[in-house]
């Protein structure tokens, strides 16, 4: 189908975008457009006005600080996928990126757009939870910094107010000895995951000392599997952790996948990702250069 009629305005700065957003209701922000355009063409949304923020230079780019990396909201999936800085310091993001849709979509879709949409099957929200990211949002009222765990509230629902724009995401750079794992199952490469898992952990002397397991496409939002992670840290073993997933997650069922199938697939992914993390040290910083 074709998109309904709407007004269109392209802004060149964050200040101009915030001004537009504050000026009236029934407006949508257009960043990469890879979900919004589909939704317009399907007439699932019909805003009165689109504010095109895709060309605001100050909102794009990857910057490494002393202990964290900041990724501008308008940074495209393909830029995160190919950035050496990301591969070196935040390998989880580099592992997740190729799973996002298809190359032509990754060439335009943005990380800020993905977080704002909060699709429960999306990769970036899960990675943000696993990495303890902080999402920075701006409005005419000021700037707020929201922890990822407080940001995703439900199906396509976030803590973002209607006058706010995500400006950047800040990821603490994991320390030496950190390991990342990522996997998802889809019927076809690039399709929405039936179940996915983003994992970030800390190994010292071959022992797992800290672990975050974030499952996505299992419920109305990405979910931290606390109990399964704590069982793995305390050495109870994979089987115990797999059995605990049912307590950690209220698996949803739909016409793609029943809740029982999702639970089964989550167990499969947990095993795969844990084997990967146990066996493959992810090269970080100095270790990467030494190898």
């Amino acid at each position, binding site marked *: 189908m074709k998109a309904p*009629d709407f007004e269109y305005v392209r802004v060149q700065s964050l200040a101009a975008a915030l001004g537009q957003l504050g000026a009236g209701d029934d407006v949508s922000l257009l960043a990469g*457009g890879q979900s919004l*355009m589909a939704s317009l063409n399907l007439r699932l949304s019909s805003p009165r006005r689109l504010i095109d923020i895709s060309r605001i230079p100050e909102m794009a780019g990857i910057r490494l600080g002393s202990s964290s990396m900041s990724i501008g909201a308008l940074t495209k999936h393909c830029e995160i996928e190919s950035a050496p800085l990301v591969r070196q310091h935040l390998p989880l993001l580099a592992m997740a990126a190729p799973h996002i849709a298809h190359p*032509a979509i990754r060439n335009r879709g943005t990380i800020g757009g993905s977080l704002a949409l909060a699709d429960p099957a999306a990769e970036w929200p899960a990675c943000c939870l696993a990495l303890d990211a902080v999402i920075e949002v701006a409005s005419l009222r000021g700037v707020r910094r929201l922890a990822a765990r407080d940001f995703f509230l439900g199906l396509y629902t976030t803590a973002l107010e209607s006058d706010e724009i995500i400006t950047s995401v800040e990821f603490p750079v994991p320390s030496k000895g950190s390991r990342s794992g990522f996997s998802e199952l889809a019927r076809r490469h690039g399709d929405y995951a039936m179940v996915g898992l983003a994992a970030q952990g800390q190994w010292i002397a071959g022992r797992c000392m800290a672990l975050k397991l974030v499952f996505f496409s299992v419920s109305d939002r990405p979910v931290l599997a606390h109990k399964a992670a704590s069982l793995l840290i305390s050495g109870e073993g994979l089987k115990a952790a797999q059995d605990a997933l049912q307590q950690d997650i209220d698996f949803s069922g739909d016409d793609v996948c029943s809740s029982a199938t999702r639970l089964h697939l989550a167990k499969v992914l947990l095993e795969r990702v844990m084997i990967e993390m146990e066996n493959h040290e992810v090269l970080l910083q100095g270790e990467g250069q030494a190898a």
Partner: protein
Amino acid sequence: MSATARISSPLHTIALNVNGTAVTSHVKARVHLIDYLREDLQLNGSHVGCEHGVCGACTVRVDGVAVRGCLMLAVQADGCHVETIEGLTEGGTISDLQEAFVSRNSLQCGFCTAGMLVTCTELLETNPQPSREEIRAAISGNYCRCTGYQAIVDAVDRVARERKAKRGVS
């Protein structure tokens, strides 16, 4: 008032470069890039399929990278360099890929072919020697309902090898 407003929905002036030619047009905001290319510029090589980014038939190049023509507004292409299958064909840079598609029967109805070629062009630029699995992953966003993909993978694989051999000689 509302009827008038709908009819007089403002046109946006865009200036872009399409297949090497500077173009200035007046477009409605709601028109996506692929409708603009096909209907305003009569570049019918790219196809309109699903219009929600799934099938890949409308894949074109914008500023040197493959994008879905249905997931970008024409007004957003203001100032951009757009290349369609017509431009890629005239440039001659993918004639080997096109010949391989023909000789390996990598198309039947041809609906997916323009988008498939644009996707494979980018794959071979960014990864000149892809494995068959990598080729399959790259074209996973381009539906072909005729060939079963095997022949397309064969053609891309063959061109990658031939280009490598050529590079080795020169």
